[in-house]
């Protein structure tokens, strides 16, 4: 096995454990062949020293009849290995035949067969093996058959699961349509794809076989004396343990080593055959802000922003300056967000819009201080609801939990499935608000009623999976509202919902903003959603804000960045005289996060690109006093025609 594995062209790294395991197994195979020839005489010759301690002549001492224990252990390699191999062959062969037959048989046979195998697996193999040894009387043959049959159901189930998943794949369906006969289908299409997993199973099966088989020999139900394998030797050693304790070391170590080696081969093969294994190692390096270009661009951007809005004062809920986020994977930090500056005033609804991968969610999660640990981030300033949370090294204050509510994208995975809805909604109020559980429940029911969930008392005691998707999202909004936060961050709150439910959820968010004056940071890839709800809109592209404008300007088409224009042009019109106009999809893709960007990140898709665009990254600059945009070319509102060009 070792030569086979190592001689293969090294497309993927062969795991060390596979090599080590295969080498030990090869050594065992060698011992099994030469063992009885070399040490056979020593193993059977009766010595004068009985139960002798370890000495240079007998490294592991002698047994009760004065025979050398080391020689006996080495000789026992052959029966132990051969028996385990035979038992594995029975188990794998039987399981393969049984499992594959069930898959290929008719639907009814298959259903019954699978159920039967499920049932058989419920019996511990050792009990099955005991029953079989009882039938055939203890001997080496019966123990091999017993172990083989005892493990057959497990292999049958594994083969069955594997074969079932393969037989549902397209190429097998095509084979069926072409009229291939079941056996040919099995041989040509199913078996080759089973080979890898089966090899893994075989080595794992061999490991279990050698251990269980030696166990049965150990308790006296396997190989009968005067024949011996490792199991019998171990049990003899245990009997002599007060005379010669070292006697158990040889057979014990042999069983362990063989079992472990086979297990290692299985694990190693599994790793080697798994296409998802990582190719190289991920190296970590501290975050370096070596790219001076965008940094310079950003400080100007920030300046433009502060000129646009008021300076950081009391009516500001969120103030972000020069937020940068990079991933730690790869040898250098991959920049994902490249200097975002943003402000949200009290009661304001700000939208972040952009394609997936533009850094909207990361920006929002950084504001919420919920970035996953694999990311590095820094910001010149990050103020949320009066707390300074700009130091990545310190824990954000608990107050953040009550100051900010978060509505996540997928309501089905954002509630803990193992807990009732009620305690999840009331948790913040109970832990941080100091409310008793009854008061918290009442408050939660009130919130649930407010977001128009039917029979809220009942919902409190239901599990998330018992609620519909729209209801879960409204429950999530109710949870975000529990502590009357100053800010709600809603990350794609409608993406996972039906169109009809989407409108309701959006209306709900708008109403909450109207009635409570809660500021809202809304993230969406859908510019229509954004323009329906927001006061101001930030358009993000490739980790930067490329345009920031009021929703009035957006409605009137007074946009300055070609990307914003393209986003608008790709939206279907639902009313008005423009309804029959064709939609214009934006060709191309945004740059892969992490690819070095020189010049404007939009240049490859921009219909107006000039020479300087691919050299210099444009700064965010004031245009017309309306908003800011990062574009070299535009100086006024863009016409429809430029997108078509």
């Amino acid at each position, binding site marked *: 096995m070792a030569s086979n594995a190592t001689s293969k062209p090294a497309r993927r790294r062969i795991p060390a454990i596979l090599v080590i395991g295969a080498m030990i197994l090869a050594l065992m195979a060698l011992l099994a062949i030469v063992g009885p020839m070399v040490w056979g005489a020593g193993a059977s010759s009766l010595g004068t020293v009985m139960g002798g301690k370890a000495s240079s002549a007998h490294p592991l001492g002698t047994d009760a009849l004065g025979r050398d224990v080391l020689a006996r252990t080495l000789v026992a390699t052959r029966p132990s290995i051969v028996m385990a191999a035979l038992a594995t062959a029975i188990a794998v062969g039987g399981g393969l035949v049984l499992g594959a037959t069930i898959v290929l048989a008719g639907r009814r046979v298959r259903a019954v067969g699978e159920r039967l195998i499920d049932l058989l697996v419920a019996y*511990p193999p050792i009990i099955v093996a*005991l029953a079989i040894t009882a039938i055939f009387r203890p001997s080496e043959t019966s123990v091999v058959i017993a172990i083989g049959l005892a493990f057959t159901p497990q292999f049958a189930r594994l083969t069955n699961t594997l074969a079932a998943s393969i037989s549902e794949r397209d190429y097998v369906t095509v084979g069926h349509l072409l009229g291939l006969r079941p056996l040919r289908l099995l041989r040509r299409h199913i078996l080759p794809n089973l080979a890898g997993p089966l090899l893994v199973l075989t080595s794992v099966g061999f490991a279990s076989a050698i251990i*269980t088989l030696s*166990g049965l020999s150990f308790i006296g*139900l396997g190989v009968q004396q005067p024949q011996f394998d490792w199991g019998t030797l171990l049990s003899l050693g245990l009997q002599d343990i007060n005379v010669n304790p070292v006697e158990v070391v040889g057979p014990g170590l042999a069983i362990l080593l063989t079992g472990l080696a086979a297990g290692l081969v299985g694990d190693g093969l599994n790793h080697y055959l798994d296409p998802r294994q990582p190719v190289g190692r991920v190296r970590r390096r501290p975050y370096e802000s070596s790219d001076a270009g965008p940094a310079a661009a950003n400080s100007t951007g920030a300046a433009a922003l502060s000129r646009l809005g008021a300076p950081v004062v009391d009516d500001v809920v969120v103030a972000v300056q020069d937020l940068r986020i990079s991933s730690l994977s790869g040898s250098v930090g991959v920049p994902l967000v490249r200097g975002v500056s943003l402000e949200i005033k009290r009661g304001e609804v700000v939208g972040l819009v952009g394609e997936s991968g533009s850094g909207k969610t990361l920006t929002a999660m950084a504001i919420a201080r919920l970035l996953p640990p694999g990311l590095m981030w820094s910001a010149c300033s990050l103020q949320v609801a009066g707390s300074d949370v700009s130091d990545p090294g310190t824990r954000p204050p608990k107050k953040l939990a009550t100051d900010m509510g978060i509505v996540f994208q997928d309501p089905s995975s954002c509630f*803990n499935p193992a*807990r009732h809805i009620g305690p999840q909604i009331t*948790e913040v109020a109970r832990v941080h608000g100091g409310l008793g559980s009854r008061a918290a429940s009442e408050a939660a029911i009130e919130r649930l009623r407010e977001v128009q969930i039917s029979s809220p008392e*009942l919902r409190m005691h239901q*599990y998330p999976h018992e609620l519909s998707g729209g209801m879960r999202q409204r429950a999530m909004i109710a949870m975000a509202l529990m502590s009357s936060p100053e800010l709600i961050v809603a990350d794609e709150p409608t993406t996972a919902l039906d169109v009809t439910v989407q409108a309701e959820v959006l209306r709900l968010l708008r109403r909450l903003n109207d009635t409570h004056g809660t500021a809202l940071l809304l993230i969406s890839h859908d510019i229509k959603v954004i323009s329906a709800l927001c006061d101001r809109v930030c358009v993000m592209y490739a980790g930067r804000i490329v345009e920031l404008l009021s929703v009035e300007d957006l409605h009137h088409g007074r946009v300055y960045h070609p990307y914003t224009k393209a986003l608008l042009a790709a939206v279907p019109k639902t009313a008005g005289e423009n309804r029959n106009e064709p939609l214009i999809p934006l060709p191309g893709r945004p740059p892969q996060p992490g690819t070095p960007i020189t010049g404007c990140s939009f240049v490859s898709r921009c219909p107006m690109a000039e020479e300087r665009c691919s050299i210099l990254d444009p700064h965010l600059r004031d245009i017309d006093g309306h908003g800011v945009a990062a574009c070299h070319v535009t100086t006024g509102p863009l016409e429809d025609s430029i997108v078509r060009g």
Partner: protein
Amino acid sequence: MSTLPAPRVTFRGRLALRRTARTPWRSYLIGRLVGVVLLTVLLVVVTFLIVHLVPGDPARNVVGINGSAEQVAQVRQELGLTQPLDLQFIHYVGHLLQGDLGTSLVTSQPVSVMIGQRLPVTAELSSLALMIVVIVGFPIGIVIGALMRRGRAKWAGSVFTVGASLGGAMPEYITGTILIFVVSLSLHLLPVQGGTSLSEITLPAEAVAFAPTAIFARLVRNETASVLNQEYITTALSKRLPSWRLYATHVLPNVVTSTLTLGGLLLVALLGGTVITENVFNIPGLGTEIVQAILQSDYPSVQGIILVLGALAIVITLAVDIVLGLVDPRTLNGRG
């Protein structure tokens, strides 16, 4: 404040809600019980057949090669082999229903009495082993999983993975031998063998529990890691809870549910481990008895013990399924 009227739920609608919440339990339980009945029938048939599948004459095996023809005939009579097969099966089942498992051919003692004496020992040993597995394995798994959250403390993970794979590969009879070896070498005396008191079965229980503990800890570690990667943990993090609370209320329940299924299989495997380990320490349980019974061709005893061990495995599997349904109601809609 809301201008829209909240949708009203009628009485009938509420009933319907309740009904959908109840029915999965029934079909789930029925599914489980059908499986249990099938397994039990299978078990009874197999144990009945043990005597009949013996190649050659089972009675001859009992009396040995030197036994006389009369002795063989007498054993045939005792085993009931003289009757037609269908009648034998009816008698076998009839006796089973009355709690009669036959009489041992070696000791002439009723098998049910022997099992009554030995089953408590085996049960005590495997329950103690299970307690060790859970009490030791669960915290280790959770702590390592939490330490390694999203790629932190890689060294701890590697050490743990190697340790757990080595530990999980240790068969109980070798662990038992090592324990005896260490005790006899360090204390220069043999650990007390054959005892059934709690202090005397602690060492055997550790032998039974060792490998399953390693496997269980690894399982819990993996489950913890996958729970910590779920989106609802981000939701929980946004609540800025104290970490003990985060783990106790948001991680633990989910890890427990996902661990239960495999934990149940582990429990069944513990039963097998107990059978072997009893022989290492000479503990008078079902495991030592069945080995003797097999070696002496004491078929009624073998049949009785296989039946009891198999029934235990069935009961454990059913219990785990029911607990799983109670703890995680989603299971009910699954493969019920």
